């Protein structure tokens, strides 16, 4: 697809500005009524979903040109998808996120690149991860755990760790906890270790399509070789890309793809995960964009008039993973759940996605701080979430902005409640 292939979507914009707001039925206060970090931070219409579609249309019609200033507007967006789900409350024929992704690719093809994004891509090419960490150290997090090596053995569950979890020293124990929960339940788990690569989703979001396809091919071949019937990942970013982007690129994995919260939910329901220890805390839950609205499975590459597209194939954000994390949270003995105002498919973003953390860290921090304010307003004592990028963004922001709100990964809470011992790294 090319940008011009979405002209009809762009022209469909009625400029109603629904893309800037939480779906109107769900507006519960003045303070937390808005859904798009970008337009909230920068205010000009160009920074909204609608505005970016108009920019794209303007360029295609030769009314304006792509330049550095316009490209920066395109990049100052987390690609969180909130505009898309709000638009789709009313519209069937506009795939706003797809336009935004195409616009990114158009910027890259046109040579309007950000240095910070190029650094991410260079890191990917060099070390197969977006953080630029040494490739040979990718599997260190698993040292000493009784996991199968899918490069040599077959396994029941292929566990994909993801870049952030693999290298972030704060989050490695979380990852060890995740696989320990699976092992404790008797699941046979395999990993790629040092051979694991990035899923490529971040490259796609930054507009580098070729790189994304290469990484998809790599993972596809590993999954085939592993013989695994299920791939589990703890990375919400990776989950969305495996569920949506890979099939969209024609590279669907030959196995079931689950987020760790989905798998733990199954274990819980089957009695193979027992949460015994009390965690008497009132939590609020942050829906990661890539696990929620962006985590919807790929439904169809509809070629015809989108006004004729069956509703079941409309990507409206409702088929994301919302219930499983909440069931896990509610199952924690003594824990309570206080919902924020913006949840599920209309949740506010953590700010880290779409290359914003790398290129515009002040904007990422501002976005996360807004979410932490909302979490505090819910009355919760702590925030739980299920994405390493969100955890990192919230912890860093709370620390820098002096916001007193503990931030937990759901995996850590499950490990604590299950009372299992996670072996220390060998």
């Amino acid at each position, binding site marked *: 697809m090319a940008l011009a292939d979405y002209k*009809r979507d762009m*022209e*469909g*914009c*009625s*400029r*109603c*500005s*629904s893309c800037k*707001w939480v*779906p*109107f*039925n*769900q*507006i*519960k*206060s*003045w303070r937390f*009524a808005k859904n798009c970090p970008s337009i909230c931070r920068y*205010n*000009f*219409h*160009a920074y*909204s979903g*609608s*505005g970016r579609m*108009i*920019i794209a*249309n*303007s*360029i295609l019609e*030769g*009314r*304006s*040109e*792509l*330049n550095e*200033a*316009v490209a920066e*507007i395109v990049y100052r967006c987390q690609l969180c998808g909130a505009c898309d*789900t709000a638009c789709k*409350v*009313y*519209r*069937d*024929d506009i795939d706003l996120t797809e336009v935004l992704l195409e616009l990114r690719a158009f910027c890259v093809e046109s040579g309007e690149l950000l240095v910070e994004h190029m650094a991410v891509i260079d890191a990917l090419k060099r070390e197969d991860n977006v953080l630029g960490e040494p490739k040979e150290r990718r599997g260190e997090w698993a040292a000493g755990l009784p996991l199968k090596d899918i490069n040599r053995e077959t396994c029941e569950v292929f566990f994909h760790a993801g870049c952030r979890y693999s290298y972030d020293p704060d989050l490695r124990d979380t990852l060890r906890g995740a696989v320990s929960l699976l092992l404790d339940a008797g699941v046979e788990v395999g990993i790629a270790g040092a051979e694991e690569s990035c899923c490529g989703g971040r490259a796609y979001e930054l507009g580098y399509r070729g790189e994304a396809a290469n990484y998809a091919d790599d993972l596809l071949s590993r999954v085939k070789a592993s013989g695994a019937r299920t791939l589990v990942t703890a990375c919400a970013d990776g989950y969305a890309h495996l569920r949506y982007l890979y099939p969209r690129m024609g590279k669907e994995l030959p196995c079931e793809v689950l987020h760790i919260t989905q798998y733990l939910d199954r274990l819980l329901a089957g009695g193979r995960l027992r949460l015994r220890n009390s965690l008497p805390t009132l939590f609020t839950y942050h829906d990661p964009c890539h696990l929620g609205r962006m985590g919807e499975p790929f439904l169809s590459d509809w070629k015809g008039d989108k*006004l*004729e597209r*069956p*509703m079941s194939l409309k990507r409206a954000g*409702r088929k994301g993973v919302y219930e499983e994390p909440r069931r896990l949270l509610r199952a924690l003995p003594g824990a309570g759940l206080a919902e924020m105002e913006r949840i599920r*498919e*209309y949740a506010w973003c953590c700010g880290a996605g779409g290359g914003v953390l790398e290129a515009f860290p002040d904007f990422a921090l501002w976005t996360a701080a807004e979410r932490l304010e909302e979490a505090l307003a819910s009355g919760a004592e702590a925030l739980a979430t299920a994405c390493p990028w969100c955890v990192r963004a919230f912890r860093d922001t709370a620390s820098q902005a002096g916001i007193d709100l503990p931030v937990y990964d759901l995996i850590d809470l499950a490990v604590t409640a299950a009372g299992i011992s996670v072996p220390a790294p060998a």
Partner: protein
Amino acid sequence: MSETAAKTFGTISEEAYRDLEEAVGPENASREPGVLDGYAWQPTNNDHPTERWVKRPVAVVLPGSTAEVQAVVRACNRHGLKFKAFSTGWGVWCGPTYDNVVQVDLRRMNRILEIDEKNMYAVVEPYAIAAQIQAEVMKKGLNLHIHGSGPNCSPLASATSGWGVGHDSIYMSYSPRNVLGAEWVLPDGEVLRLGAPGSGLGWFSGDGPGPSLRGVMRGSAGALSGLGIFTKCALKLYNWPGPPRIETEGCLLDARSEIPENMGFYLCAFPDRASFLEAVLKMGEAEIGYNALRTATAAYLNVMTPRLFKRLTDTKAIRDLMGKTLEYTIMMVLAANSREELDYQAGSLLSIVEDAGGIALDMSTQKPFVRMALMGFVRATIPALVFRIGGSFNTALDRNDALDTQENWRDACLAIKEEWISKGGILDDMGDNPYYVPYENNMWAHCEVVYQFDHRKPEHRAALEPIFLDFTIAALEQCMEPMFSSDPRVRAIIGPLAGGFNRWQREVSKALDPGEAADSTLYCGEGAFDLSAVDGAKVKRLNELIEKLKPEA
């Protein structure tokens, strides 16, 4: 920017732009073409129907205070520029009509400044949208009038500058009645406070103590920023007998709301026009109803289940059932302070409907529907679905007038729409699609006939101006002063026949805007229909009517 493209658009001098930057801060001004085009895309209600873009502004500014608005307006006066303000930016009336316009985007002025629970008003800025204000005032047992455009729009803009009926008009009337004082930056940059705030006595009254210029300020249709910029206003609040927050799952058509026990929902259907009118008038006399909307069953199905609608309406019997059998219906939403009061209201309603020979379906018992539709009524979340089937809509000229005259208008519009549906000029909604609300004891009503189109289709764009001319002729046939006389083409025809209101508008504009800084085309400009391709019989009829209705010298 290519040379070719640059010739197409207006430009701004360095000095003028520096002044704008100084007025609002450099981060709140832009002249980047891509950014400016964000303000030029207006496919809905474009005043040039074959176009989707309006004039591109030469710059956009985001003032954050009244003082910054004043500074922007004064800079425009100094540099021979025009200004055009908007709040949420939906519709062509928000965009420039000249080549030298500075777009004033009021997005940063978004606060609810005060909610006076005791005196039942809220003071708001332009970008506080209806849904936000409602969410806050409901916590205090209050509600506000939301005009039919819906919860994403600015109540200040409607109250001070344009039209303003809604589902709730049966209980809260329409926007001109709901403005209690306003802060107005005049076209020369001076600030005028109308109503009680003009005397520094708070915001409780729009008509004094202090100057009352409500008629000049907005008149019938509003000046649409053609007479300056409103930076604050007080809105009347009303009783809300429901809960502080309506608990709702889902976003719109998948919504499931908790239904307050003291609300009732009745779909009333009548056998004919006379019985419908008789019943609605009696409902007004009985002073019952919290929301009321005359429903065209087909129109609802059209936007809620468009694919199914297409298939159903290919079946003549079903088409007749929806169009004829359910022709005279109205949805009545009741809200009361107690179960006893609700019983009284419901009893009155059922008695009136029965006396008129109609039937009333108690939709409260139809949980899937009413749980989905509750917010659609109370927060007016459904109207934007009108975009669903083609992306654009327009309305016939429409008016606020006596209840029975609205039926004539509806009939006339139906005939015009059926003709254009059959020609493929607009989308098929079965024709009968009025946004029809009774108010002020139901002596008055507003009938805004909707037609939908897909502006991506050239044949639809080509049809828009001829359709508008047809509605204009129909309005003249009925001696009607149409609400959409804000359209320069319609104003030029209707104005001289209706007391010369266009001349008075020009005089007001001249007096308040000596520097001609406001973009006032939609307030008092005049234009002409392109009659070159119009059926000769229609042109002849238009001229006959103009001659017939011309006031005697």
